[in-house]
């Protein structure tokens, strides 16, 4: 059954290749992409069930034994993240035909979409540091293709910056892998972890760890490396923004979570202490960015940064509650960010502008849309009983246990400001005079809201049904906190 681990990579890859052939036939492409994303979701659901009942799946590709061959490790963390990715992929596949992509759909939108899913799933599953780099490149290549679709003046300009910053950090990634290879003589993550443990992470190893952190922090948009994110994420179509906001930065933060719970865990006073400060600064600067603008897309894009801050806080704490909180918040944030990007896309579409100062009174025409936005604002800010609350509660509890009172206060204030920044869209856009938007033609939101409602419902279930989900998350956290389990399961000693 170990071949199961490769399916989340293979299925989107084959789907993408098939969709290239139907590029000009938009209707066929749409139907096929919906079908393929559902197949992929079904498979990953089964894999998640299998992993949680039978334990980690390890695939040694081509029967080359670990640590010599490339291995794929489908453990609990990888399984739930792949499942979440596929859920978002389904929602986006159903949203895309109505998203106003128009001609862009025939410019290989669907193949790029599935290549992106391939890269993201691969990055979650792989057990090899160099392979992680390769899957990063797969998903980045697809994202370069997606971000330039349409090719307006502004879009090209921002895509160029996005490409340059990612190219630079990828090359640093290769350099860091080269250094690590010179020191420990392997690129297999389990064996690196084992060898780093043997020498207790002495000397240059911590430096290499921080170099790797720098690379992943650039991809994850942490303070002070987030400057490239907000403007480049708002230029493409909303469905593409939703994919980027939900998946790309999360792959970066997943890599930090993996590397700094498995490999570099022996000098926590140098690395993990620093994460807590970076978490606090990311929260503050991200939320200031969100408050500073009246462009609704930019508000949501800036809100990615404090969310990443919350997740890195748990990694910095490196205790049971912190890691569980990080995982819970990671899943919650993947879902809610795609909801918000899609919703803001609908609002910008019906209002004809993304500038808040030109909006008002939309609730008279689109009441359902307004209340959806309001509920998702509550989820994002982490009000009970929604899923954001569970994650934040665990994170702040973990911070209290470590005696990090300052970060708890920063976290709480940030949550309040996040709520304000999104409710601002509701207040300025939806309240107010009915007349402001009276001249606008009433547009149909048919087909746009169903995927959003689905994702939002899932987010509410994650919060209300925490009793059911939490034990699984907790078991993953216990698993991550003991690197021995990972090492033993891969190297079979």
């Amino acid at each position, binding site marked *: 059954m170990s071949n199961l681990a490769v399916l989340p990579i293979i299925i989107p890859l084959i789907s993408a290749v098939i969709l290239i052939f139907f590029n000009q036939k938009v209707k066929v492409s749409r139907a096929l992409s919906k079908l393929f994303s559902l197949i992929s979701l079904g498979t990953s659901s089964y894999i998640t069930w299998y992993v949680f009942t039978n334990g980690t799946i390890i695939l040694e590709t081509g029967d080359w034994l670990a640590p010599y061959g490339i291995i794929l490790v489908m453990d609990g963390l990888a399984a739930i993240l792949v499942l979440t990715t596929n859920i978002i992929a389904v929602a986006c596949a159903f949203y895309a035909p109505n998203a106003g992509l128009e001609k862009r759909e025939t410019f290989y939108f669907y193949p790029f979409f599935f290549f992106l899913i391939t890269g993201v799933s691969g990055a979650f599953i792989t057990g090899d540091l160099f392979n992680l780099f390769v899957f990063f*490149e797969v998903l980045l290549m697809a994202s370069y293709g997606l971000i330039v679709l349409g090719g307006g003046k502004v879009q090209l*300009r921002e*895509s160029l910056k996005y490409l340059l910053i990612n190219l630079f950090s990828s090359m640093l990634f*290769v350099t860091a*892998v080269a250094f690590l*290879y010179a020191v420990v003589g392997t690129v297999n993550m389990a064996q690196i972890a084992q060898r780093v443990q043997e020498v207790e992470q002495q000397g240059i190893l911590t430096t290499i760890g921080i170099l790797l952190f720098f690379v992943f922090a650039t991809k994850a948009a942490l303070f002070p490396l987030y400057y490239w994110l907000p403007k480049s994420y708002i230029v493409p179509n909303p469905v593409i923004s939703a994919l980027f906001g939900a998946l790309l930065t999360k792959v970066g933060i997943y890599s930090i979570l993996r590397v700094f719970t498995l490999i570099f865990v022996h000098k926590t006073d140098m690395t993990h202490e620093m994460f807590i400060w970076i978490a606090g600064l990311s929260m503050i600067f991200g939320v200031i960015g969100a408050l500073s603008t009246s462009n609704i897309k930019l508000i949501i894009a800036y809100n990615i940064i404090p969310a990443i801050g919350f997740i890195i806080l748990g990694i910095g704490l490196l205790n049971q509650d912190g890691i569980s909180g990080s995982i819970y918040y990671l899943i919650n944030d993947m879902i809610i960010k795609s909801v918000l990007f899609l919703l803001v896309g609908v609002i910008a579409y019906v209002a004809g502008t993304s500038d808040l100062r030109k909006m008002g009174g939309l609730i008279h025409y689109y009441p359902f849309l307004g209340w959806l936005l309001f509920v998702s604002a509550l989820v994002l800010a982490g009000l009970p009983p929604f899923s954001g609350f569970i994650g934040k509660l665990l994170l702040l509890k973990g911070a209290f246990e470590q005696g990090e009172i300052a970060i708890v206060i920063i976290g709480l204030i940030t949550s309040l400001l996040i709520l304000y920044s999104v409710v601002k869209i509701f207040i300025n856009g939806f309240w107010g005079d009915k007349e402001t938007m009276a001249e606008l033609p009433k547009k149909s939101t048919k087909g746009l809201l169903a995927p959003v409602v689905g994702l939002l419902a899932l987010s509410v279930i994650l919060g209300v049904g925490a009793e059911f989900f939490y034990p699984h998350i907790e078991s993953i956290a216990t698993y991550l906190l003991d690197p021995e389990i990972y090492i033993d399961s891969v190297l079979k000693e």
Partner: protein
Amino acid sequence: MEIITSILAGVLFATAIYNILQKQLLRIVIGTALLSHGAHILILTMGRLKTGQPPILTEGISDYTDPLPQALILTSIVISFGVTSLLLVLAYRTTKENNTDNMEQLRGNENE
């Protein structure tokens, strides 16, 4: 030999960073190409440079060349070729659309 290639990688990195920090778009593209060359030479150096040894470890052979860095470089070269060609096309299109190749003018203003 390792020392010399390490210095070469360092020089490549330094020139790459210098070029990336320029305002002209083409210089930035050249800078990224140099950066990838520097990274590749670094990988090669990190696997120890040996000549004349087989890349296979069997019984009776104590001295062998490590084949892994070459495999890593090959993968990385292919990727950086792909990205560089995409970057060139993107830079060309951006220059055409925006009528400038100066990064200062490609900054964009807040209210658009």
